[in-house]
C-alpha cells in the first residue's frame, strides 16, 4: 500500500479525532463531575459555529471570530447552565436525557429563526488557504494542520489546567467523589458553572474551526454529539486523558475504515460484494469498537481513579 496515501489518511483521521476531542472534553467533564447527560452539548457546537462565524463575517477576520467566540460561548454556557440545567442535577438520567433533548429542538429552531434555514458560509482565512508539502511527497491542506495544532494546544492547556492548578484539583476531586468534595468545602455550584462554561467554549471552538470546511448548518452538532458520546464511553466517563486517546483512535479508525475497508474486503469477497459491504461495515466500525470495548471493560479504557 502507498505510504503517502496512508500517511495523509492518518492525518485526516487525526484531524477528525481532534474535533471529536474538543467536543468530548467538555462532555466528559460535565458528565463525570456533575453526572449530567447533556444532549444539548451538540447545540453548543452549532451555536459556536454560528456566533463565531457571524463575528468573523462582520469583522472580516476569522481570527477575531475565534477570539471573540470564547467569551461569547462562556456567557452562553453559563446562562444555559444556570437557567435550564441546574435544576436537572438531582434528577435521574432519564429526565436529563429528555429535557436536554427538548433543548436541542429549541436551539435548532432558534438558530433557524435568527440565521435562516440556509446556514452560514464562513470563508477560510487567506493565510491558512492552500496546501503545504510535508516532505516525502506528502502534501496536506494548511487549514487542517491548523486544526490539529489548535487541538493539540487545547489538549495541552487542559492537561495543565486539570493537572497543575487549583481549579483542576477541584475538578479532579469532583470527578472522583462529588459528595466528598462538597463536604470539604468546595463551592460546588460555582465549580459546575465554570466547568459547563468551559465545555461550551470547547464545543463552540470545535464547531467554529470546522465551519470553513463544512459550513455551518442547523443540527450540525447532532452527528458529532453521538460520536463524542461514543468517545467518552470508550475513554471512560470523566477522564480527559481517556477522551483524548479515544477521540484519536475513533477518528483514525473511522477515516481509515472509510478509505481502505473496501480494498481490504476485496481480499475476501468478490468485487461487487466488497463494493457494497465496504461503506456498510465502515460506518458501523466505531460502534462495533465501542460495543467490544464495553463488553470487556464496562467502565471504558480509563475510568477515573476512585470513581463509583
Amino acid at each position, binding site marked *: 500500500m502507498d505510504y503517502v496515501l496512508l500517511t495523509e489518511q492518518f492525518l485526516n483521521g487525526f484531524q477528525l479525532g481532534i474535533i471529536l476531542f474538543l467536543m468530548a472534553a467538555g462532555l466528559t467533564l460535565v*458528565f463525570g463531575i456533575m453526572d449530567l*447527560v447533556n444532549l444539548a452539548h451538540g447545540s453548543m457546537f452549532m451555536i459556536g459555529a454560528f456566533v463565531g462565524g457571524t463575528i468573523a463575517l462582520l469583522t472580516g477576520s476569522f481570527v477575531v471570530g475565534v477570539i471573540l467566540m470564547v467569551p461569547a460561548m462562556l456567557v452562553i454556557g453559563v446562562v444555559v447552565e444556570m437557567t*435550564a440545567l441546574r*435544576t436537572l442535577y438531582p*434528577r435521574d*438520567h*432519564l*429526565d436529563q*436525557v*429528555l*429535557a436536554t*433533548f*427538548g*433543548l*436541542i*429542538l*429549541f*436551539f*435548532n*429552531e*432558534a438558530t*433557524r*429563526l435568527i440565521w435562516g434555514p440556509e446556514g452560514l458560509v464562513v470563508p477560510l482565512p487567506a493565510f491558512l488557504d492552500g496546501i503545504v508539502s510535508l516532505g516525502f511527497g506528502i502534501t496536506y491542506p494548511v487549514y487542517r494542520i491548523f486544526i490539529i495544532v489548535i487541538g493539540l494546544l487545547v489538549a495541552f492547556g487542559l492537561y495543565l489546567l486539570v493537572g497543575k492548578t487549583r481549579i483542576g484539583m477541584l475538578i479532579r476531586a469532583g470527578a472522583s467523589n462529588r459528595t466528598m468534595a462538597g463536604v470539604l468545602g468546595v463551592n460546588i455550584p460555582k465549580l459546575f458553572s465554570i466547568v459547563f462554561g468551559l465545555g461550551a467554549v470547547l464545543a463552540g471552538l470545535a464547531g467554529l474551526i470546522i465551519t470553513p470546511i463544512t459550513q455551518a448548518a442547523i443540527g450540525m452538532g447532532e452527528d458529532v454529539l*453521538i460520536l463524542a*458520546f*461514543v468517545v467518552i*464511553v470508550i475513554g471512560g*466517563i470523566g477522564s480527559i486523558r481517556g477522551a483524548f486517546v479515544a477521540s484519536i483512535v475513533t477518528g483514525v479508525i473511522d477515516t481509515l475504515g472509510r478509505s481502505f475497508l473496501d480494498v481490504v474486503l476485496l481480499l475476501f469477497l468478490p468485487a461487487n460484494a466488497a463494493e*457494497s459491504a465496504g*461503506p*456498510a461495515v465502515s*460506518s*458501523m466500525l466505531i*460502534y*462495533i469498537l*465501542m*460495543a467490544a470495548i*464495553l*463488553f470487556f471493560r*464496562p*467502565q471504558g479504557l480509563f475510568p477515573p481513579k476512585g470513581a463509583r
Partner: protein
Amino acid sequence: MQKYGRRLMGALRNPANVFTALVLVIFALTPIVAPALDESFYVIVFARIMIWGIAAVSVNLIMGYGGLISFGHAVYLGIGGYTVGILAFHGVTSAWIQWPVAIGLSGLVALIFGAISLRTKGVYFIMITLALAQMIFFLSVSAERYGSDDGLSILARSDFGVSGFSLNDKTTMYYTIFAFLLASVFVSWRLVQSRFGTVIRAAKSNDPRVQSIGVAAYRYRLTAFVIAGMMCGIAGLLQANLESFVSPDMMNWQRSGELIFMVVLGGMSTLFGPVTGAFVFLMLSEILAGWTIHWHIIFGPFLVLVVLFARGGIAGLLTRRAERD
C-alpha cells in the same frame, strides 16, 4: 356483572382514566366518524398514532417497570418493518411467513443486544443501546439493494390469503392495528401482574436484595428486553404495511428519544400511559406543525417543562388534580 360495573364507575372517577377512555373511544370510532365528515385523512393519522402507541407500550415494559432506559428501541421498529419490506421485495408476501419472521428476528436481535448491554448499568446502558442501534441504522443506510437512505417501497401489503380480510382495505388495516394495540396493553398488564413482573419491578427498585434472595435479575431483565423487542417489532411490521414504505429514518436515534418521551408524557409505569402519551405527543406535533413551521421552538421547551414539572406525565397530573379536589 354488577361488580364490574361498579368498579368501572369507580375507575372513571379518576380523570386520568376518563382521558384514557376518551382516547380509546376516539380510536375505536374514527373509521366510522371521519369518512362521514369527509375527513378520512384522520384515519391514517390515528392508525399511525396507534402504531406508535404499541411501540411506546413496549418501551414502558422495560423502562417504566424495569427501569432500563434503552436509547435504541426504535431499532426494532426498523427490524420489523424491513423484514416485511425485504421479504416483499423478494416476492414473499404471505403474512404467515412475513410476520413470524419479523417478530422472531426482532426477538433475536433483542436477545443479542440485551445480552451485551445488560452487562452494563446506568449511563453506559443508555449509550450502548444507542450504539448498537446506530449499527443497524447504518447497516440499513448502506444497504444499496434495499434502497439505502431512500428506503424501500413495498408494492404489496402482507397477504393473509383469507378472502374478505385484506390489509389493502383501509378499515381492516385500521382495526387490525387497533386490535394489536389492545393486545399489547393486555400482554403488558398480564406480565406486570405475574410473578415475572414482580421480579422485574423489584429489581428496578432494589437490585441487590433481589439478587440475594436468589433470583437472577439478569435473566428476567433479558426476557423482558426480548419481549419488548418483539412487541416493538410488531409495531414495525404494522408500520411497514400502513405506510407501504420503510426507511432508515424509522430507526433514527431521535425516534428512540421520541418513544421514551411518549412514555414519560403519558405516565411511566401506568398501563395506558404510553398510549395516551403517543396520542398527545403526535396530535400536538400535528397541530403545532399545521400552525407554524417553527413549531419546534414551542415543542422543545414544552418537553423541558413536562420533565421538570409533570413527572408523572398526564396520568400523574390528572390523578393529582383529582386527589386535590
